[in-house]
């Protein structure tokens, strides 16, 4: 017996040697999705930006922790009076990680490449307003727009608009070379991506020596990885409901921030019976947002009544328009001649907000007589069936792009919503630069969407971040999907 104990203790000692021995300037950070490749200018996957944005690649401008536009490779800029010519003054002495110099030629190359006809940039719309890009001198670049665009500086801060070098542009997918404070070291496919501090960085040096992005595919694996100390930080924790259980643990800091993700129950507006206003309104009345938020996001989400983030200046609170009211919902269904209810499908993409929320919504709609069949789909199928072919009744998805209310005016968008009045407002909006007028227009747009009950507006997706209590400097909110590590450091 004694022998056994000795052996076990010895084994424990051997096993534990080296588990917690990491240098205090190293960071292991968890991400859910593995990027398909490492070139932010050639793919829409948010996972690419989660690793590389602000860390390895930089653009002319960058987006700050609260969604503000900050200077990056451009130290300053001038805008002509007609709002069409932007002249950027670039930082000098900037080097790419391969040792080559950065200058205005690289900017011209990057922007021309992104907006070329054969470009595979996933956000070509960002560059649509650009008419010409001219190199004035190595430290100055002049961009002329076809028409004034109020969001241009913001657009240039996207991950899709980062500056790459002509020499390495073709190989960035495998071996990214940028100008940022970290340079790429290694990508163990399916496992992790490692960045190390760049010694030649032009800006303020970072505190971390090494950052390993470890791919932890789901909440089930993320919870024990955090609890066991294998991973120090999980800024985008995949499942808010399960992060709640680490809240009382003094080893961790749980930070709930805002995202730009309007989580909605999307409705196929052309498909009967959803083409009828009463039916869509009945669904809105049948939804109990509190139960959905409590059940799918541990009570952390902020309810919304239209397609706008509550953090946005233009936000109008419309959550009172359709309070949870089963009787009213049944009445509306009766008016629509559907007093016996009907059957429909609910296609759910993989994220927990959709899968958990879907079960709750199915149960709530059953209470008013709508019998939903839950169909779980992978993203590939969702994109194909729901988004492209519009072969769906209902689905749940979080629209994480900022300021994206215009999607309801897009022709052929998957909501199948068509309202000329709304389209007119969006068209006016793009031509209006007066701030007050814009707010009014955006308010009207929100009201129309709510009145039409285009979709079931649920809540603003919370960003549940959790990290070691000894770490600081992470973004609390998620204006864009990025893990900016430039300010992250260990406090002891």
């Amino acid at each position, binding site marked *: 017996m004694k022998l056994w104990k000795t052996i076990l203790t010895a084994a424990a000692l051997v096993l534990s040697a080296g588990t917690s021995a990491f240098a205090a300037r190293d960071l292991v950070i968890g991400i859910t999705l593995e990027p398909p490749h490492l070139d932010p200018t050639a793919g829409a996957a948010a996972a690419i930006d989660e690793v590389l944005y602000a860390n390895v690649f930089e653009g002319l401008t960058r987006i700050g922790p609260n969604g503000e536009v900050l200077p990056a490779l451009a130290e300053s800029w001038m805008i002509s009076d007609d709002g069409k010519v932007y002249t950027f003054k670039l930082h000098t002495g900037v080097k790419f990680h391969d040792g080559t110099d950065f200058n205005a030629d690289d900017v011209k190359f990057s922007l021309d490449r992104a907006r070329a006809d054969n470009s595979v940039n996933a956000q070509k719309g960002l560059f649509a307003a650009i008419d010409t890009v001219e190199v004035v001198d190595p430290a100055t670049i002049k961009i002329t727009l076809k028409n004034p665009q109020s969001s241009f500086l913001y657009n240039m801060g996207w991950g899709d608009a980062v500056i790459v070098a002509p020499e390495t542009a073709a190989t960035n997918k495998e071996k990214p070379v940028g100008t940022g404070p970290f340079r790429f070291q290694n990508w163990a496919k399916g496992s992790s991506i490692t960045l190390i501090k760049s010694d030649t960085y032009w800006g303020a040096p970072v505190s971390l020596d090494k950052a390993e992005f470890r791919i932890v595919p789901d909440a*089930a694996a993320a919870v024990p990885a955090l609890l066991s100390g294998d991973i120090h930080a999980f800024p985008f924790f995949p499942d808010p409901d399960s992060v709640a259980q680490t809240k009382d643990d003094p080893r961790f800091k749980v930070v709930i921030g805002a995202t730009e993700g309007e989580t909605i129950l999307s409705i196929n507006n052309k498909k009967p019976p959803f083409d009828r206003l009463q039916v869509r309104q009945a669904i809105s009345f049948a939804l109990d947002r509190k139960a959905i938020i409590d059940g799918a996001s541990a009570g952390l989400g902020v309810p919304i009544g239209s397609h706008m983030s509550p953090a946005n200046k233009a936000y109008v609170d419309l959550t009172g328009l359709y309070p949870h009211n089963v009787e009213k919902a049944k009445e509306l269904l009766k008016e629509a001649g559907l007093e016996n209810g009907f059957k429909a499908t609910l296609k759910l993409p993989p994220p927990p907000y959709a899968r958990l929320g879907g*079960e709750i919504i199915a*149960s709530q709609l059953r209470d008013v007589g709508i019998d939903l069949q839950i169909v779980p789909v992978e993203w590939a199928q969702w994109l194909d069936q729901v988004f492209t072919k519009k072969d769906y009744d209902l689905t749940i998805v979080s629209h994480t792009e900022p300021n994206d209310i215009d999607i309801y005016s897009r022709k052929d968008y998957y909501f199948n919503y068509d309202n000329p009045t709304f389209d007119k407002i969006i068209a006016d909006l793009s031509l209006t630069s007066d701030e007050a007028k814009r707010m009014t227009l955006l308010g009207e747009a929100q009201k129309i969407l709510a009145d039409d009950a285009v979709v079931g507006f649920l809540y603003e997706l919370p960003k549940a971040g959790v990290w070691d209590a000894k770490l600081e400097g992470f973004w609390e909110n998620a204006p864009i999907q990025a893990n900016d590590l430039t300010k992250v450091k260990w406090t002891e």
Partner: protein
Amino acid sequence: MTLRFDIPEENFADILVKAFTNRSFLTGFAITIVVAAVAIVSFFWTPFDVTRLIIADKTQAPSPAHWFGTDHFGRDILSMIMVGARNSIAVALVAVGIGMGVGVPLGAFAAARGGIVDEAVMRLNDLVFAFPALLSAIMITAIFGPGALNAIIAIGIFNIPVFARVARAGTLAIWPREFILAARAAGKGKTLITLEHVLPNIVTLLLVQGTIQFALGILAEAGLSYVGLGTQPPMPSWGRMLFDAQTRMVAAPWMAIFPGMAIVVTVLGLNLLGDGIADILDPKSRRQR
């Protein structure tokens, strides 16, 4: 699992006596009956309604009201396990049915015909066997969409060669027997002989294999549901319950413990039952006792 092909030649009373003195059989039988009873009761009564989500009651620890606690949607875990039993049994039973229904005729036919037909059937078997069952089940459910029905089909397909092999081996062992020769001499056709003489004699073999495959089916369904490809909500399933539990192991360990135990007990019961039947009907094991 090796099976022996001797045919018992004893009367029913002897078998009954042996059954009641066989520990494996008794334990397995008792567990199986209890699980089946729970599943049947769930059709008429469960402590709570499993289709109603009461978010306010989420993840409550076991208590006199909720013996096994509640899950993340406030549903009673005991009630869900009861309904889940029904689901597990249904999936495994149909999958075994598919395996037997297709595999036994194939195997018996191949053995009776021999030659090219036998060869073709066995090569087809090889082909199915070459695909690791779980991998293929995941592929099938990924292509045709997750769901109980596709899980049944996926599991069922991989039961076919198993039963075909057992039926073929059993048939081959019986075919040279005198009573078969007599029947052939009397001018009976192969199909008739297979139906009248061969099948009744390999039924016990199939029964034993059936319980084994039944148990494997329950594990397979749990595995598929666990990776999200089996039974879909709102229908409760044991594997699905474990899937939901895994992210809440700290806050609500009971969500993982009780469904896991339900699977273990059920599979254990079926395996014991299968062992017991094999023991009782197998003359070789009698000799050893």
